[in-house]
């Protein structure tokens, strides 16, 4: 390495280093990860682009304020393990966040280089050092503080629950995570596909938690198998964290939604990811046979992109995204939109479905759509799509996936009525502590915000862990409870 300090000009002259990826023609025939990751050389070259701002904007753009300038400097110096440890001071799931965070709306959006050049590839670098640490077998077990004798129940094993469990366990508390499904990881496992987030990586994080003593109990639906009150009163948990996600799929309420071949994105992705339907009949769960069929996915978020790219990989001839606004309004990560396009996904923008059409046997054969145009801005600041008169047309399709978002599962509300919820059934918390209206019960992640992001869920889990720790520290330890 050239040890002579680089000038800003020299740094700015380095172009943003693209991340090697599987060829689109190749990757639409497999479920392996699209991106192949930086090599150490690429990572260092990319890191050299950072001009080490005095007051780095990127840090403020990051929801958990990772010390971005510092970790990038360590990469530039070749200290990859130092870099990942620096990240882990603020973000305990860097291999995951490096892959799925919407960096272009967060740190990279405000990176000083973004205006004139391209921003530093912060996400790619984060991912690189996290992978480096794991692949070289250098993940260190964190220091665990002496046992406090306090017991905390975490409900849900998505990013919110895992992060909360992690911090509490390190502080010496005894943590049990209850998960409804047979598989841990929440959306990271059942929603986001392998080609975007390899399941081994999520599993490695879960294994890490097991190593620091977190207990996991799968197949337990809190509210049904056991209630929050029972956990606290009969099983003597001192505090409870609710991280149950936003898991109630919305439908559109248009005719024909119950035809054969119409799925919610949750069902389609769960069948394929969690139940491994791509491997049918080796795996027992079937999914619609997409081969040579036409598939339309309705929506413009990450979930829609995941569903449509999954359908393509299952062999769909035409795989469409049907979205009622324009591309600029799509909530999906830009990278996923770009990848989808490279993979031959067809984008039908400014179009809205009005009815699904089926045959005698009730199989889906098409969808009637209407063209839209953008009108006035709505409360969210996005221009509101309005239908264009007499512009209906029929799109022939064999399978449809509805991906217009999720509401909250009402189970916790029904079984623990003291917990205050909003009109949308999300749990109401104090944002500084994530405390709910019920004593010693905290909540965070999608169940509080509605469908949001992994990093926000993680941040919320950690904020709650801190508040729970502070609250319990004020109480005498009770080692004698069973």
């Amino acid at each position: 390495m050239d040890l002579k300090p680089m000038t800003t000009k020299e740094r700015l002259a380095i172009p943003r280093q693209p991340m090697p990826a599987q060829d689109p023609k190749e990757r639409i025939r497999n479920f392996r990860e699209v991106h192949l990751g930086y090599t150490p050389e690429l990572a260092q070259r990319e890191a050299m682009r950072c001009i080490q701002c005095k007051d780095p904007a990127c840090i403020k753009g990051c929801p958990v304020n990772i010390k971005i300038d510092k970790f990038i400097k360590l990469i530039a110096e070749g200290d990859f393990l130092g870099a990942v440890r620096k990240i882990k001071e603020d973000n305990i799931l860097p291999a995951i966040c490096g892959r799925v965070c919407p960096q272009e709306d967060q740190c990279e959006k405000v990176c000083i280089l973004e205006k004139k050049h391209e921003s530093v590839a912060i996400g790619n670098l984060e991912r690189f050092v996290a992978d480096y640490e794991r692949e070289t077998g250098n993940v260190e077990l964190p220091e665990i503080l002496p046992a406090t004798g306090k017991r905390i129940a975490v409900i849900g094993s998505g990013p919110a629950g895992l992060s909360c469990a992690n911090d509490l366990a390190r502080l010496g508390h005894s943590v049990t995570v209850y998960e409804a499904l047979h598989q841990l990881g929440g959306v990271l496992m059942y929603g986001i596909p392998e080609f975007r987030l390899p399941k081994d990586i999520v599993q490695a994080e879960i294994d890490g938690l097991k190593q620091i003593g977190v207990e996991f109990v799968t197949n337990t639906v809190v509210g049904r198998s056991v209630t929050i009150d029972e956990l606290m009163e009969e099983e003597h948990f001192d505090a409870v964290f609710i991280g149950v996600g936003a898991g109630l799929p919305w439908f559109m309420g248009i005719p024909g939604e119950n035809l054969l071949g119409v799925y919610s994105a949750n069902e389609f992705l769960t069948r394929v990811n969690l139940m491994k339907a791509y491997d049918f009949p080796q795996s027992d769960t079937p999914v619609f046979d997409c081969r040579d069929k036409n598939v339309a996915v309705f929506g413009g978020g990450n979930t829609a992109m995941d569903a449509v790219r999954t359908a393509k990989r299952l062999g769909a001839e035409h795989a469409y995204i049907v979205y009622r606004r324009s591309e600029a309004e799509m909530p999906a990560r830009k990278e996923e939109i770009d990848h989808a396009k490279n993979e031959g996904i067809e984008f039908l923008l400014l179009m809205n479905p009005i009815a699904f059409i089926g045959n005698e046997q009730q199989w889906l054969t098409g969808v009637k759509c209407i063209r839209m145009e953008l009108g006035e801005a709505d409360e969210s600041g996005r221009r509101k799509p309005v239908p264009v008169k007499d512009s209906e047309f029929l799109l022939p399709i064999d399978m449809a996936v509805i991906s217009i978002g999720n509401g909250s599962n009402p189970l916790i509300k029904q079984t623990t009525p003291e917990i205050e919820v909003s009109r949308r059934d999300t749990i109401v918390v104090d944002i500084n502590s994530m405390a709910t209206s019920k004593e010693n019960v905290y909540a965070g992640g999608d169940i509080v915000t509605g469908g949001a992001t992994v990093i926000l869920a993680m941040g919320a889990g950690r904020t709650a862990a801190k508040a729970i720790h502070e609250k319990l520290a004020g109480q005498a330890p009770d080692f004698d409870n069973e």
Partner: protein
Amino acid sequence: MNNIVSAIFLAENIKKIEIHAPRIAKKRKAGQFVMIRVSEHGERIPLTIAGSDPEKGTVTLIVQGMGKSTRELNLKKEGESIHDIVGPLGTPSHIENFGTAVSIGGGVGTAIAYPTAVALKEAGNHVITINGARTKELVILENEMKAVSDEAYITTDDGSYGFHGFVTQKLQELIDSGKTINYVLAIGPIPMMKAVAEVTRPYGIPTVVSLNPVMVDGTGMCGGCRVTIDNEIRFACVDGPEFDAHKVDFKNLSDRNRMYLEEEQQSVEAFSHKCQLGQQK
């Protein structure tokens, strides 16, 4: 992993399986179900909790071998285990003292209706049970049903045992005899439930059916189990499985249950083939 404490055939192809699952045994109420996965690559299938023993920490399932998953489960013996079981799921049956309550079961539906019949009896109802089967050999839970019934009838399609005819004919007979019936619960094949709904509709007798759409998670997360009730979408795994029979769109349910016919056949063929190979060894 959950241990199988006992497993016995009640009739050809219908097995009663007692599984160790203490939390579920303690919490479950009539009308609720579990989702199970027999093996690691298994699908998640719903099965009604036919009974439980909270002391022993066990729940009882009664399973009819239909396709791959249920046949695989029915091969399991005492001492073996199943990979996953989660529950109790679904909204419990609405139980009160209605007066005279008729519980109708068709085929394995008898097993699904049984726990609710027990609860109806405990609530003080005059309980009449009508349990139908195609033929004598397939009649299940005869003694159990008798024990909770004030009047117990068995019907067989071929007349080999009990009343010769369908459960709906027996029900019509009871109505025609001038008996006041305040509540009807019907569980069985879709055509049977639909027929019962049509029998009671003209008399305005409150009638409840337990629907059996294809489920995946069983927790309200996927919407695959959606059914049409009064022209609205409802999720059977959380809002049901019991619904007002007079509001159910049975055609939509039976259409949707055909979604994976081909795949189901493929699974069963592969499975039978494997079983035969196993037997030859």
